């Protein structure tokens, strides 16, 4: 088949399609978003690829498809797995039927994230297999293999990628596509009801499976050990363990090394303990090059004898935070640094941080809020995950807290109940649907004085403009239905030309000693621009 230039995300998507996936669920999150987008763009006749309310519903919907025999893909960014953690951990105890593959894209360096947690810990915690591709071809091949492994071991299987692979494009040669699984007409429910008595049995089964899983990863060619032939093995300064794209940075520098080092590359977890011991048997030191947290490095300390020096992030051979780069690996290998050209020392280069687009509706709503806050200096403003988080930096500098999806509403509830008179939660429409509704129910149940400002641009904007799962028109009825007094569910148009009226409404609702919700509506500029250009193209 012909070679295609694909992003790592796209290679995952194509691998899933060619493995006969029937449904693909997810919630947008950088750097995972392009996986579902690729299926949506190029496979409009199927498989089904849809955005869900949040990662938990996405994961559970995928589980439902697996239960009736179909192959299911579920995608998210690393912090999304926190939201889906409940079904994720429990699903390892089920007798997975149709292959269930969860692709998690980690974001070391926090290019577009709140933390740099490493999903390999989650896979280890759940006791499932985790495949970690190092290039686009492997992203394709391993996604296909993950579906087979899921059905073979009857467990969910994780594919872990990181930003630089997700968003890097290179050649992929696909292989012939496999048919979808048939829908089971008779579904066997055994192993799918986790009542304590059953769950104990299922957990015992999962523990039993570990032996076969470990035999598999020990023998898998993805965990490749290379021991160079040499006359005098005592002179080898170190062995190298790489994982994921850490291998690329090692290989980039290998020509400068002058001698071949024993090298073990890890592509599938749990770790192959025997291969690691074989590598370590002939060297005084092992250097671990892994993208993310020191996962392998930490485990090595329990596997290898004390005499062997283990280097990596914990001994600062590589930085503990941030992503790897070829030059950081070069330094860890003990090679001299290479330099480019320099700026004149007197020239200072100002930073150019991301910012709200010129004319963004969020900017107009923030301008109104900022004016009122001058009158309410004691007010607490919590906010959330999305483009509007950019309002936390000057010149706006309005949101005080940004923690995780939905936390603006719940934190406003807590601050209000702790005694703050004016608490305002600023949240986007998609984030509100994702995780803002449940804390609003808390507020309604206890009549907590908060104002929720929903910045409704009809778009999941930060991740590139996906459509919100429910349209704007549904929000007022939804919120009134939850029990907010209809007089305090108010829709405004988020435009500076209505600033005076909008300020009046916001001022009144901020002062109202009960639950109020102001929905500030105007379409995202990028969405409007895209619609216009699609329309022009159609004409």
């Amino acid at each position, binding site marked *: 088949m012909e070679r295609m230039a694909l992003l790592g995300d796209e290679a995952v998507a194509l691998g899933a399609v060619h493995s006969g996936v029937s449904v693909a669920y997810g919630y947008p999150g950088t750097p995972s978003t392009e996986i579902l987008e690729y299926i949506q763009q190029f496979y409009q006749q199927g498989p089904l690829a849809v955005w869900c309310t949040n990662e938990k519903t996405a994961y559970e919907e995928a589980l439902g498809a697996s239960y009736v025999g179909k192959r299911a893909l579920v995608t998210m960014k690393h912090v999304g797995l926190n939201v889906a953690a409940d079904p994720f951990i429990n699903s390892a105890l089920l007798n997975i039927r149709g292959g269930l593959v969860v692709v998690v894209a980690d974001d070391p360096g926090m290019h577009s994230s709140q933390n740099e947690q490493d999903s390999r810990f989650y896979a280890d915690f759940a006791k499932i297999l985790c495949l970690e591709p190092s290039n686009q071809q492997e992203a394709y091949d391993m996604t296909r293999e993950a579906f087979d492994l899921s059905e073979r071991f009857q467990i969910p299987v994780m594919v872990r990628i990181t930003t630089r692979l997700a968003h890097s494009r290179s050649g992929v040669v696909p292989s012939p596509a496999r048919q979808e699984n048939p829908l089971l007409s008779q579904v066997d429910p055994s192993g799918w009801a986790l009542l304590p008595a059953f769950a104990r049995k299922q957990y015992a089964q999962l523990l039993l499976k570990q032996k076969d899983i470990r035999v598999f990863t020990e023998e898998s060619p993805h965990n490749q050990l290379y021991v160079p032939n040499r006359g005098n093995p005592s002179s080898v300064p170190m062995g190298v363990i790489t994982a994921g794209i850490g291998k690329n940075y090692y290989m980039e520098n290998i020509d400068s090394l002058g001698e071949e080092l024993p090298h073990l590359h890890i592509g599938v977890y749990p770790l192959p303990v025997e291969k690691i011991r074989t590598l370590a048997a002939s060297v005084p030191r092992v250097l671990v090059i892994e993208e993310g947290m020191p996962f392998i490095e930490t485990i090595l300390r329990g596997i290898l004898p004390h005499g062997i020096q283990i280097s990596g992030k914990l001994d600062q051979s590589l930085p503990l935070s941030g992503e790897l780069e070829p030059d950081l690996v070069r330094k860890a290998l003990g090679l001299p640094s290479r*330099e480019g050209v320099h700026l004149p020392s007197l020239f200072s280069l*100002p930073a150019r941080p*991301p910012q709200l*687009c010129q004319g963004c509706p969020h900017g107009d709503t923030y301008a109104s809020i900022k004016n009122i806050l001058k009158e309410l200096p004691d007010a607490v403003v919590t906010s959330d995950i999305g483009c509007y988080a950019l309002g936390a930096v000057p010149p706006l500098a309005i949101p005080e807290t940004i923690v995780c999806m939905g936390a603006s509403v719940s934190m406003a509830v807590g601050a209000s109940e702790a005694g703050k008179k004016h608490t305002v939660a600023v949240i986007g429409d998609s984030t509100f649907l994702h995780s803002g509704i449940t804390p609003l129910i808390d507020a309604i149940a206890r009549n907590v004085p908060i104002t929720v400002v929903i910045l409704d641009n009809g778009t999941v904007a930060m991740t590139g403009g996906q459509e919100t799962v429910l349209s704007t028109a549904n929000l007022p009825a939804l919120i009134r239905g939850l029990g907010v007094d209809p007089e305090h569910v108010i829709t405004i148009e988020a435009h500076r030309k209505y600033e005076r009226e909008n300020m009046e409404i916001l001022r009144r609702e901020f002062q109202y000693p009960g639950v109020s919700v102001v929905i500030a509506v105007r379409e995202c500029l990028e969405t409007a621009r895209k619609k216009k250009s699609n329309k022009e193209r159609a004409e």
Partner: protein
Amino acid sequence: MKYDILLCGVGGQGVLSIAAVIAQGAVMEGLQVKQSEVHGMAQRGGAVQAHLRISSSTIHSDLIPKGAASMILSMEPLESLRYLPYLSKDGVLLSAKEPVLNIPNYPDLESVLTVIQQYPHHRIIPALEIARKIGSPRSSNMVLVGAASKFLPLSPETLKKVIEGLFHQKGDGVVHSNLSAFEAGRRDA
């Protein structure tokens, strides 16, 4: 043969579309390509970069090592200076002349251009001005691709074929104006 290009600019300028044209050209000439892009938050008016690596043999790292880039290709003068540590000592520093003034502390433009001019292999291309002159202000990106083509290890005919393919759906007029932009940029470099 290996040729590493660090492309940069400000989110929204279309850095990725330039990268895509050059990468596709390299693929058409049978070369290996890796292209690392920035998606997500930075695309909202922040500094963005793409690492494009072209080689006749296997490319390992998705990121360009320091001092290895054969070219910095920038859509904005200030941004062209942000990635100098990646530029090899004999690499080309090629930037559009027109600034994007979306930060309050943008330095004096003349001083930015003067810094660029201190590097031996530099080109400052008035991409927007050229694009306007040929009556196609939206094709300043292709002016830059044309200018870069003077140095790239790819035939200009290949790149023109890529441009034709890219804009073919939008009609002959759009194809023609982008090809003119490419030629004008190439003449100016």
